[in-house]
């Protein structure tokens, strides 16, 4: 006879049914990704049966000039987008946290719209915008990525603002008052007191902007001029034709970068909550 293990009534996590449910959910979420990673090391083109360990698909992915270019473009776009988004997001968070001004509520809701608007709507808007203002389509590399960067920053910086704003809530205004009392100017106090306090928020927000940019397909698809290719756009065209281990290898690299960014972002964020 199985002995019933004593369990608090609200200890849902230890209910066998709940454990099974959670296991099911995580199997559903992770099996496809695990299989994708596993088969990037599989010595078989067919992608179904395990034929032995190999790194040749990684070599192939790196030898694929277009894929490499696409990957590099995506990282470059994400990098530039992160820097601009962090600056804009931090300023936005600061202004709404600090000041009272007319039309503040509507403006704040409006500036959060890029977060809720369906990607496809913003995508076509960007396409139309760049077509109508006659944005040059034939700029030399890397300036032909400008449209994509501008579009990515527009939807990424409100996300940064949310993260930074959460961080600012834990700021003790007396610190700034003390800095001002001690003779610092407003700008000095902002630079030397408030920005250092924002820092974990800036890091977490920056990593969020980086992943959002790296992840984006729809808006890039509409914003990119002819001839510019990013990683998601390239994978999209490859997936349309067939499933190849080469795509698995390239995807695994991206997953690795994302996991790393996520872990770093969570670290930064947990530092935020611990201090406050």
């Amino acid at each position, binding site marked *: 006879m199985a002995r019933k293990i004593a369990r608090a*009534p609200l200890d*849902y*996590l230890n209910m066998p049914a709940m454990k099974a*449910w*959670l296991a099911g959910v995580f199997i*559903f*979420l992770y*099996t*496809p*990704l695990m*299989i*994708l990673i596993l*088969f990037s090391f599989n010595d078989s083109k*067919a992608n*179904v049966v395990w034929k032995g360990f190999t790194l040749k698909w990684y070599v192939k992915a790196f030898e694929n000039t277009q894929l490499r270019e696409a990957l590099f473009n995506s990282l470059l776009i994400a990098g530039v987008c992160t820097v601009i988004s962090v600056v*804009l*997001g931090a*300023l*936005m968070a*600061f*202004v709404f946290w*600090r*000041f*009272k*001004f007319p039309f503040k509520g509507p*403006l704040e809701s*409006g*500036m959060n719209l*890029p977060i*809720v*608007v*369906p*990607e*496809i*709507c*913003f995508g*076509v*808007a*960007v396409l*139309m*915008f760049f077509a109508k203002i006659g944005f040059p389509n034939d700029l030399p590399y890397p300036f032909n990525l400008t449209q994509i960067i*501008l579009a990515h*920053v*527009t939807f990424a*910086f409100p996300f940064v*603002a949310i993260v930074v704003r959460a961080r600012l809530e834990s700021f003790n205004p007396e610190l700034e008052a003390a800095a001002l009392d001690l003779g610092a100017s407003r*700008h000095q106090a*902002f630079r030397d007191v408030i920005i250092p306090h924002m820092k974990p928020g800036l890091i977490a927000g920056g990593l969020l902007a980086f992943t959002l940019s790296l*992840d984006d*397909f*729809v808006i890039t698809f509409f914003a990119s001029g002819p001839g510019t290719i990013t*990683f*998601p756009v390239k*994978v999209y065209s490859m*997936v*349309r034709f067939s*499933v190849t281990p080469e795509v*698995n290898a390239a995807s695994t690299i991206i997953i690795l970068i994302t996991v790393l960014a*996520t872990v770093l972002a*969570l670290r930064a964020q947990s530092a935020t909550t611990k201090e406050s």
Partner: protein
Amino acid sequence: MQDWREDKTFFRATIALPVIWFMIFFVVPMAMVWAYSVGENVGPVDVAITGTFSNYAKAFSPEVLKVMWNSVWLALATTVICLIVAFPVALAMTFADEKQKTWLLLLIMLPFWTNLLIRTYALIAVMRNSGVINSGLEGLHNLLGVFGMQMGVFEPLPLLYNKFAVVVGLVYVHLPFMVLPLYAALDRLDKSLIEASLDLGAGHLETIRRVIAPLATPGIAAGLVITFIPALGAYLTPDLLGGPDDLMIASLIERQFKRANDWPFGAALSFILMYITLIFFAIRAFMERKGGKVGAH
């Protein structure tokens, strides 16, 4: 909180950049789409803004309505499945200890941070005819054949390029959207109410139905909206996992801009999707205010 007039220069210096950026790269493009949605094609590339509603009227033609109905139906199915799958997860997270909470959150969030295209591609690799599921089934089928059962020729399950695949893909992608607001709402519940309900003899399911669910309504509403809206506007998932009959509204919009080259009609469709989004978020904001600020974000 400081009044902006107390320090005008500093206020202007900090607000200028984000607002200007937002105006140029968001408001102006969206306004252009809106203007186009009431415009007419007057040449291969020229569009006159005439204030017509014909583009919106076109959206009520049977073919377009079919796509809209399709989108709503698929997004709704996705949302309901997400709610059923996510609720126990959120409940388990609520009552887990701190360390388990962090891990569960991380496990839910990691796929969410992974590239959407990669996740869709991973699903294709699992679900296609020569994918892992069908190969496994084929192996099982052959094995049973070896043991002398009459099995006939193996037919792979048609898992891809149909509505089933689209819903699986949408659930796969949107599950975290549901878990997080539910968790945020459940985490704020007064746990003694649940204990009281259990003490007084209600079972777990009855407690969920009559105590937890009513109290978590704003969170559930938030989860429903946050899941339904992106699922409704999803482009990549139906495009890659669906068949030709499973077109959703986003693909239809994309066609007007790329292949069909009917920008005013595409703009109208895009704004219909925008209006639906805004209405849902307005309802959610209203409920949140009524429910005393319980919910996500």
